[in-house]
């Protein structure tokens, strides 16, 4: 879904809002990867699993709303994968692609050096 920005797509305040989202999204994607690393042999469950799902769900809703549909796509795959109890390696691969999409979004909104 493409976000229709209307008359304020060049609005500096709006662009700053998008940058803020991307910075936070990168942190949250890394948190998802961290959760997967702590789960040995199986998909994340209990509190960690809920946290994984919640981040994926929120990025799924917010990504496209900020004009980053690919973020929504991979975040949706991550949430659905979690709900389908997918293999953690598959989930890790999806989260990797999600992080890539977030970095791409950072480049689009002019964040020069996204932390590694």
């Amino acid at each position, binding site marked *: 879904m493409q976000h229709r920005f209307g008359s304020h797509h060049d609005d500096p305040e709006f662009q700053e809002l998008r940058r803020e*989202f991307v910075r936070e999204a990168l942190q949250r994607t890394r948190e998802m990867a961290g959760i997967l690393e702590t789960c040995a042999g199986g998909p994340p469950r209990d509190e960690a699993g809920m946290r994984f799902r*919640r981040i994926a769900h*929120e990025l*799924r*809703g917010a*990504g496209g709303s900020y004009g980053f549909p690919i973020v929504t796509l991979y975040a949706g795959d991550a949430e659905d994968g979690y709900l389908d109890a997918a293999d953690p390696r598959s989930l890790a691969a999806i989260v990797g692609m999600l992080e890539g999409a977030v970095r791409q979004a950072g480049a689009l909104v002019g964040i020069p050096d996204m932390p590694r």
Partner: protein
Amino acid sequence: MSGKVLLVDDDPSMLRLVAFELDREGIRTVSANTGKEGLRLLEEEEPAVVVLDLLLPDIPGTEVLARMRKARPGTPVVMLTVRSDLEAVVECMRLGAVDYVPKPFDRTRLLASVRNAAERGTLQARVESLARELHRGEGFAALVGDSPALRRAVDLLRRAAASEVTVLVEGESGTGKEVAARAVHAEGDRRTGPFVALNCGAIPEGLVESELFGHERGAFTGAVAARRGRFEEADGGTIFLDEIGELKADLQVRLLRVLQERHVQRVGGTGTHAVDVRVIAATNRDIRGAIAAGAFREDLYYRLAVFPVVIPPLRDREGDLMVLAVAFLRRFAERHRRPVAGFTPEARRALEAHRWPGNVRELENVVERAVIMEDGEAISLGSLPDAVVEALQAGTPEVPALAGGRSLPASRAEIRPLEEEERRCILRALEATGGSVQEAAERLGISRATVYRKLERWGLAPGAGSTDQEE
């Protein structure tokens, strides 16, 4: 739009973006990131619209929605959630959400939804305000009076309103049986549903069945389209069946079946339609007598008279007459823009002397006519109909009226010696009957001999006023 929008979402980035979009359109927002905080802000901020996410950290979004609808049913709620929650979205719409905006959201779609919801909320508030205005006085306040007889009836009606019981309202014509039925509806849980009234005695015999149960297209000559009956129209509300005693035997059977099965079958139809209807019936006939005579089904009577309430005739409502008369006077003076503010003492006495066979309806009509006729500030005898004035001149019910305390003079100055009143009554009676001692005596409830004796005592020539051939 005026009024704030309450945003409830646990994702700060989503809250920021929605607030930004609405702010750019001049719409103020207030944000909550938990369900609990959202419920608190709903009470504190009284927003015009709520935009609610489904996945909240503390309380499920569906539960937050249900609690919001209960706390502030007039505040529209728009759901904002991802497409994967579709089942939950359906549940939200069932719970009363006005719209659903999928995430990721489209800015134009979100703004349209919020504006539509705000407009809907404003309209809803307006409709409720008008409905309150329309229904003002439709509750028990419409049953004006404080007599013990009326209080007993109102107490029963209140109990009926608090339940779903089928009510049979009995009473003479004009006592206010429909007003009572409307009050039960207006004060009960079905008040937001329709109130459908049908006078079973006022509809041509051949049409009653179609009126009650509806008909399918082609069911009879002239049935060019299918039509819902009154039972279907009253679905979710109350049906008031006036003059139920006039219903013919075959329709009594059909009505009994509807009351038992809560389904109606249209005339000419084969299927049935479920109806959720409260039934209030009314009659001014002696239904028990009709049962004894075989004119009314006993089983239908017991279905209808689960909770019988008798509305007393006006003559049994001690002290209510002038209260009602003044209430009608105020209403009609306002409606007809007449500067009439009260009754002259004579007019008051005339109203109190009349027997009111047509009960409250007759009084209402008399007062409305008088308000229109009267040129002064108080309704005088000249504005009252002859039937009412004649009652005073004939003095017909003076004794019972006094016993009921209804025709006591308004002030000490009006108290006259009994003999003087008696003289005035007899002379007026003679005047009104054209000098017929026979008729005057009959109307006064005394013997001819008493009339002659009184005339003699007052120094009036015996038989002077009489034209009776036999005297």
